[in-house]
């Protein structure tokens, strides 16, 4: 029963299921598109201004897209109580969590990949700082949302108002990560300051909370 084999198998299963019934991803892609368009109507800044506020807008838009995806994390497992089949098997709980988190990362990254070019077009963005740093930053930031998101999606399964509970539990804890992402993005776009400090914060955040999630997920899974 090695850890990686189960993580890989669960991830492959989720990807296959996602690929087979593409309706979930299509609906969310359309939702992300809507969020970007609405943001662009709501704010119509000049080129200079847009560099300053784009960081905040992009990450809030990503947050909306992520929440919608994270709410679906355990939908398939709940449908035919397949989660029980997993819990009865000798497989440990951590690979299930890791596979689900990675699956969510890929899912949300796909949404972001669609939203980013639209943002660049609508806001005529051209980063003055080192533009390439936006890619690792996006991964670090998205993982910060996704790892806690997957964990608290499992916690909110046990509550009454499941869809609203996830943001209530996730957002307060994600404030430091959000502050980090927004400021790092703005630093890169405006090129005035160095994003190093913020990226260090995000790395610390990801390490601390990934560890906490891996250690505590089994406790949550077993809490009937």
């Amino acid at each position, binding site marked *: 029963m090695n850890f990686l084999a189960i993580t890989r198998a669960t991830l492959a299963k989720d990807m296959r299921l996602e690929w087979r019934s593409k309706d979930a991803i299509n609906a969310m892609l359309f939702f992300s598109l809507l969020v970007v368009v609405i943001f662009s109507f709501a704010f119509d800044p000049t080129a200079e201004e847009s560099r300053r506020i784009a960081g905040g807008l992009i990450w809030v838009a990503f947050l909306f897209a992520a929440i919608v995806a994270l709410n679906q994390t355990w939908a398939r497992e709940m449908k035919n109580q397949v989660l029980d089949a997993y819990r009865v098997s000798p497989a440990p709980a951590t690979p299930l969590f890791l596979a689900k988190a990675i699956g969510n990362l890929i899912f949300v990254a796909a949404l972001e990949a669609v939203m980013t070019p639209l943002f660049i077009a609508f806001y005529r963005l051209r980063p003055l700082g080192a533009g390439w740093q936006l890619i690792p930053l996006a991964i670090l930031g998205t993982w910060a949302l996704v790892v806690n998101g997957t964990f608290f999606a499992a*916690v909110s399964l046990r509550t009454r108002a499941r869809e609203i509970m996830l943001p*209530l539990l996730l957002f*307060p*804890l994600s404030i430091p990560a959000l502050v980090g992402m927004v*400021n790092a993005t703005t630093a890169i776009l405006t090129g005035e300051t160095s994003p190093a400090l913020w990226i260090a*914060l995000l790395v610390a955040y990801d390490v601390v909370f990934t560890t906490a999630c891996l250690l*505590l997920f089994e406790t949550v899974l077993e809490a*009937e």
Partner: protein
Amino acid sequence: MKRGFTILAVLTAILLSFAFYAALLIAPTEQTMGNVQRIFYYHVPSAWVAFELFLINFVASVIYLIRRSAKADMIALVCAEVGVVFCTVVLITGPIWARPVWGIWWTWDLRLTLTLVLWLIYVSYLVLRRFSMSSQTPLLAAVLAVFGALDVPMVYFSIWFFRTQHPSPVIGGGGSLDPRMGRVLLYNWIAFMALAWLICWTRYRLEVAERAVHEAEAMQSLKEEEAR
């Protein structure tokens, strides 16, 4: 037991009134801000007490995760609830102080922002306890409390970095403090801790009673079913 409670209540009343008197009359008036600076003696100690209560909540949650003792769970719940009340005080007195001095209702001051984020985390903690359908709600709450505690240093550094790039006025605590002010601050801190202790004790007794009543009701419905 009852006697101990009344002693504490009387002691708290004495401490609070003395601290109130000290804050208004003993402490010297601050040159630049004038009398409004005296909000400091309520604002800062409330924040300290709130952080202490959340620390106890974290410790009790870790103990619950290890030993699953109902006592630790009740202490964690009580400290979270009373902690949120003290946090609310800080979040209300902060802006009331900032308004006359800097003409703004909100400033990203380090302590104020940290209190706001902690308030959000622990309100979500209480919401989780209320909405949870699981038969092991204390377990889920304890896990959230651990996550909340891990978040505190992250919040601290993110605000500290944020403020280095967006300097904003500092509410109290900036620069050296006149020793007499320091002493009055101490009196208020002790008085508020006594108040917190008193409220926590009451809330704890209430929680114990509530759980006992639930138990009794369960037994009662059991007997009724048996009788039928």
